[in-house]
């Protein structure tokens, strides 16, 4: 995907909209290079990308609640009923 065909230089307001495409590897090589060049020159955007990465890490640390014994019991009962049909 080419998003920045006309301008080699991107501004911060554009950079923050490209972060996910960049992290997902969906920018063209040229756009990815322009994005990386911008980060090298811009402390604000470098920090912003760092925060998005941190946010992803924080979200990834959230574990779902374990299956409760009651729920497990209920579901196993359901399975036995299903088997019995």
């Amino acid at each position, binding site marked *: 995907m080419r998003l920045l065909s006309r301008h080699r230089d991107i*501004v*911060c*307001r*554009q950079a*923050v*909209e490209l*972060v*996910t*495409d960049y992290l*997902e590897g*969906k920018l063209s090589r040229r756009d990815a290079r322009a994005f990386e060049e911008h980060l090298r020159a*811009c*402390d*604000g*955007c470098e*920090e*912003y990308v*760092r*925060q*998005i990465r*941190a*946010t*992803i*890490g*924080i*979200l*990834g*640390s*959230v*574990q*779902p*609640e*374990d*299956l409760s014994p009651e*729920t*497990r019991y*209920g*579901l*196993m009962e*359901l*399975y*036995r009923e*299903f*088997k019995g049909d």
Partner: protein
Amino acid sequence: MIGPCAPYAAGVSDDDLVRRLRAGDEAAFNEVINAYHPSMVRLAQSFVSSRAIAEEVAQDTWVAVLKGLEGFEGRSSLKTWIFHILANRARSTGAREQRSVPVDPGAEGSVDKRRFDDGGTWSDPPPHWSDEIIEKLSSGPFLEQVQAALARLPESQRAVVTLRDLDGLSSKEVCDVLRISEANQRVLLHRGRSRIRAIFEDEVVTR
């Protein structure tokens, strides 16, 4: 440790598992509910108003899964098939509830436009997150605020962020579960993550 959506056991194929489930193998069923039920409840919460309703939707989903098991053809993985059934049910349950989805002002761009000057350069750049701040955001006591931040997302964004970032599904799997295009998935992921970052900044970092 096996993550919430990790495959039941290394080397066990869907074919095997489906055969065992059809044959009434309780150990197989125990494996799949361990692997998926907690994440199913969490995904359902994207669409319905309470954890209790999400739990009901997940349990109803197992009924549908067991009934549909004979017809399962393996065109998608067992996991995405189950999660797809769950998502559909949760969505229609949520629609019946007529739940009002919170709409955040300023949810348009990834970052409030007022933080850039006319040329599009930061006029109010994000304040630095120290390692201590990031550690705090990842800590047990902050978990509730992470959940609260997720609850402020529109349901599609919340579902995508939950599946990708909390459960670690691939973008392809998320597209299969929610039946959306890769491009749409990416837009929803982008908006969701951007919004969560902004909420973390508002709630924690600047206080």
